[in-house]
């Protein structure tokens, strides 16, 4: 007997055919004793399987289940919030973190920008006044050279030394120096000033005294004067090097801070 016909006989015997198919197959197997025997065998098997549905009663108790679950201290695993879009959190969080990181690095970079101090600049000349924030105060530090203007105080005096090597012809009449003051705790600002010049908020100020330079600060956190030297760069050129002359002030006691 062909396998296909046998499968159809099984479907017929187990009632898996629709009435049209069943009738068609019955007509097909009618008169074929072998085919009819196969259909009958599957029908007997179906009846026998149905008789197997009778099973003995179980003696399983709820207490047994409770013991199995509770005495073992088992608990259902807490339901997690499952969402098909959960994976979106990962790139979104990564992007946000990247953005915050970039922003922080940028801000840090701005804060550690160079400090420029101009000595002997023309009176009333202002460096970078265009970028001065509206709320910047006009207080300053007086140095011994007239016309000192400062902005972006930040780091140690090594940068000041490097700035002295600049060709004086290319340098603005205001002599620039960077990083006049090292670190936050080293602000060479009189504590009475009540502020410490930092970053771009520092305004250029005209010199008010012949021996003192004026530094401008917009930061309003008062810092005590440090013992580290302050280097002031003068507009006058050194005879030997041709570079601008630098003067190191031993301490902030030589620096008068005032408006």
């Amino acid at each position, binding site marked *: 007997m062909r396998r296909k016909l*046998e*499968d159809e006989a*099984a*479907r017929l015997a*187990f009632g*898996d055919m629709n009435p049209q198919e069943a009738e068609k197959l019955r007509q097909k197997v009618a008169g074929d004793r072998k085919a009819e*025997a196969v259909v009958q*065998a*599957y029908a*007997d*098997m*179906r009846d*026998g*399987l*149905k*008789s*197997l*549905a009778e*099973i*003995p009663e*179980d*003696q*399983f108790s*709820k207490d*047994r*289940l*409770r013991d*199995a*679950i*509770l005495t073992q201290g*088992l*608990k*259902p*695993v*807490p*339901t*997690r919030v499952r969402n098909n879009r959960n994976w979106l959190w990962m790139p979104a969080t990564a992007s946000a973190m990247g953005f915050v990181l970039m922003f922080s690095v940028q801000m840090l970079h701005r804060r550690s920008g160079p400090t420029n101090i101009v000595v002997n600049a023309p009176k009333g000349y202002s460096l970078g006044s265009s970028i001065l924030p509206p709320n910047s105060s006009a207080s300053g530090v007086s140095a011994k050279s007239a016309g000192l203007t400062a902005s972006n105080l930040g780091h140690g005096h090594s940068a000041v030394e490097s700035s002295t090597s600049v060709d004086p012809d290319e340098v603005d009449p205001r002599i620039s120096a960077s990083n006049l003051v090292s670190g936050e705790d080293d602000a060479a600002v009189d504590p009475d000033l009540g502020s410490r010049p930092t970053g771009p908020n520092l305004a250029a100020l005209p010199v008010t005294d012949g021996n003192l330079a004026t530094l401008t600060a917009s930061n309003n956190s008062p810092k005590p004067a440090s013992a580290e030297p302050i280097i002031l760069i003068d507009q006058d050129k050194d005879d030997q090097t041709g570079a601008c002359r630098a003067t190191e002030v031993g301490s902030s006691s030589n620096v008068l801070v005032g408006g």
Partner: protein
Amino acid sequence: MGYDASLSGRVEMDTDVALVKKARDGDFHAFEQLFDRHRTLVYRFAYQMTSRRDDAEDVVQEAFVRAYQNLHRYRDEAKFTTWLLRIVTNLCTDQARMSQRRTALEQQEAAGALDWMTSGDIEDPVHNLEADRRKIVLRKALNALPIHHRSVIVLRDIEEREYPEIASILGCTVGGAKLRVLRARRALRDRISPFLGEDRS
């Protein structure tokens, strides 16, 4: 009183999904209700798969323990019973693998019993004895089937589950479930036909 009756009625009408949610929140009584509802179903299937009451009860216990521990994995879109029967099917498959040696012995025993029953040495004067004999033959042959054939025969032809549900339990398509049932029936008939006097030629 009337309030209590309506309340209890409402509790009785709790769907499986609602009970599952309560059980997830730590309400063990809700899980016991689920157990009461479906223990017979699980036991019947387990018994048909194992043919031993004690084994079937072990399977029932393990199935409900696993269900309790994995309630968070249950998806509301599927019927709870379907999910439960899938667990039982997997458990029975695992058990069949572990007790392969025992099964082999049982098969030998079944074959011996079939030979003994079909040798014609014993006459069956009473008709119900013949029915019992056929039943035993069928049971033995069913137990001797590979687990994947046995599970679909039990689901479809003994427990009379619909094909879509069988497909859900087995994790296949409806067409795949039909095909599996067809093959399993063929395999079962191949096993019983020699003992029932059929000519397979």
